[in-house]
């Protein structure tokens, strides 16, 4: 009996992630880039639940991430709450906003919903930028503290250190990944992906289209909130430009690149999108032009990204009949 590809890759990635601090202990830069990639993996997982499984496009997701980020940052910086409650605060803030936006907007037809997410993203950016008193405005919000140490017996984990923070981010990303894992393999997950494939069939089978969409949207915005929070805690500074429309589009890009609708899609996408350019360090314009062409090609020939392509190859190897499912 063969393990499904996704399971194998998942195990490999988790193992790699867990061992990274030991492998790259001597090379903080690599660890740094991996942490950054993880900070993007988390919201990418959120988008995967929304886009990859439920089939809803959101072009303003980093806006929700920003809500989580600023909430967590302010709770820790100004209110002085410890890390965990602050993080939950950020998560709930983002999820609740998702709820408020979702209630009216998820009844809209596909195009309209996309436009709404775009508009919401823009509005949120403006607020981050203009509310100088609250968010520090366009000058950014410096001096965001990182969580304090935890001491298990003699073993001390200092989250201010790079390694410590990597471990923290990895644990959280792993938890989120686990959540995604059980979600999409549950009846709930199957209902979601039925919505992507054929909404009216799903309805005829008894899926409450609106309810399930709302649940998926709230989940993905809450997860995005966690991701945003981790990002600003990592950078120890928040800036509106970290949560603008381009960032939202980048988020979509890394998911589509990695493979929407695959468990490991967001992980692979984030790593390829963040890490590769970091190591290549090519001119930004060239990098973006390149990604533009990649998107066109993916859209046309491999709508399910790297994972989709890998699956085809894997099926060929395990001489199953190769077949890529067209996304529609």
């Amino acid at each position, binding site marked *: 009996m063969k393990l499904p590809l996704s399971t194998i890759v998942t195990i490999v990635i988790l193992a790699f992630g867990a061992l990274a601090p030991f492998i790259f202990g001597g*090379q*903080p*830069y690599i660890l*740094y*880039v991996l942490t*950054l990639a993880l900070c993007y993996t988390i919201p990418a997982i959120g988008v995967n639940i929304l886009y990859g499984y439920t089939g809803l496009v959101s072009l303003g997701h980093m806006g929700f991430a920003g809500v989580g980020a600023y909430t967590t940052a302010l709770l820790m910086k100004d209110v002085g709450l410890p890390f965990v409650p602050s993080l939950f605060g950020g998560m709930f803030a983002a999820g609740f906003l998702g709820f408020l936006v979702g209630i009216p907007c998820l009844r809209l037809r596909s195009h309209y919903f996309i436009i709404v997410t775009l508009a919401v993203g823009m509005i949120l950016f403006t607020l981050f*930028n*203009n509310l*100088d008193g609250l968010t*520090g*405005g*366009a*000058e*950014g*919000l*410096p*001096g965001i503290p990182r969580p304090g140490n935890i001491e298990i017996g003699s073993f001390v984990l200092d989250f201010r*250190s*790079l390694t410590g923070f990597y471990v923290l981010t990895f644990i959280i990303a792993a938890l989120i990944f686990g959540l995604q894992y059980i979600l999409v393999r549950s009846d709930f997950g199957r209902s979601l992906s039925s919505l992507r494939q054929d909404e009216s069939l799903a309805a005829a089978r008894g899926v409450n289209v609106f309810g399930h969409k709302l649940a998926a949207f709230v989940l993905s915005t809450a997860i995005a909130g966690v991701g945003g929070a981790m*990002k600003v805690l990592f*950078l*120890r*500074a928040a*800036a*509106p*430009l*970290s949560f603008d429309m381009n960032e939202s589009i980048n988020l979509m890009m890394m998911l589509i690149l990695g493979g929407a609708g695959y468990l490991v899609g967001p992980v692979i996408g984030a790593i390829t999108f963040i890490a590769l350019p*970091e190591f290549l*360090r090519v*001119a*930004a*314009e060239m990098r973006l032009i390149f990604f533009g062409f990649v998107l066109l090609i993916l859209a046309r020939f491999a709508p399910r990204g790297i994972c989709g392509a890998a699956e085809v190859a894997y099926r060929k190897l395990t001489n199953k009949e190769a077949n890529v499912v067209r996304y529609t």
Partner: protein
Amino acid sequence: MRKLLLTTALAAAFMAPAAYADETVTIGIVTAQTGPLAAPGKFQMNGFNLAVDEINGNGGFQVGDTTYMLELKVYDTRCNAAEGASAMQRLATVDQVPIVLGELCSPVAAAEAPIAQDFQVPLVVTVPTASSLTEQGNPYFFRVNANSGQLNEALAAFVETIDSEPLSFIAWNNDTGRGGANGMRELLPEDFEFGYIGFFNVGEVDFANHITNIRNEDSKAIMLLMDEEPGALAIRQIRDAGLDAKLIGTLAMGSNRFLDRLNAEYLNGMVQYSSFPPNAPMERIKNFSDTYREKYGEESHGFAAQSYDGVFVAVEAMKAAGTTTDGAAIRDALAEISVDGVIGTISFDEKGQASPPVYITEWCEDGSRKIIAPEDLAADCGAG
């Protein structure tokens, strides 16, 4: 004397840099070379390169009894916090530079500063102005240029002396613009009368709405908090719309480069603060501007001057610390240092903030500029 150094520097720069030194030190540079702030990034780089050419042209610098040549390791941050932070990380851990200079955008600097502290690599910024940057109690963060607070104080002091009420604003809706506008509103006295305050997003080019509001408030003066490109557009639109209020600009607007975008009668009588009047009748500024023009064929720029001085500050700090590797020692040296730079004498307060002089210049009819403040440095048309 310095003039002579500079010319030899040039000679050296145009031939292959004379390499009779024992070793080289690599200094890290973070700046924007692509993206929306690519243009100011260029000026910053020009300043760095000029300084390096000069130092290497003179056969490098002495630390202890070894002579070192300077080298720059430049990373593009595109004014993006995440990329800036990873560039800083890379410089500190991969390239292991003793000190990092540069940066344009305040939020990016805010993301880079903590990493400087983590790895004990001093970060000396030469352009970002957000006052909050030097308020974080980060011992490894230094700023050569005047921050928005200092610039605003100088400008506010001047604005009070002229008939400018009600004063209206057109400001960029980003760190420069918002910081400036909010700062001015705090600094000017309670009873000072403000007119209309308008913000526009980066990339907006139509100022008609702001102009109407300003006309509506019949403001005496308009403060333009933005850089060259929108500035030129705003001024043209203001004058084309038949508004003749007094214009008050930023350091980006006191240069011949700016003049090329418009023409003298649009600018006549406009004043702006400046951390570096390129034609000031001061030996140090003249020399710098001449070399700059010879090398880059254009009038020198404040960002270039500040960055040029940044390199010398770094070098002096390494000399004083007697090391080209130990960031902590260099940091301590920086805290004590005092360097006579192009923009003035540079020494850092306990927050790491230098306080170079801030000038006010005014455009003359012939398209030249005069320095009207500070009094002791005042000079007539052709000087600013």
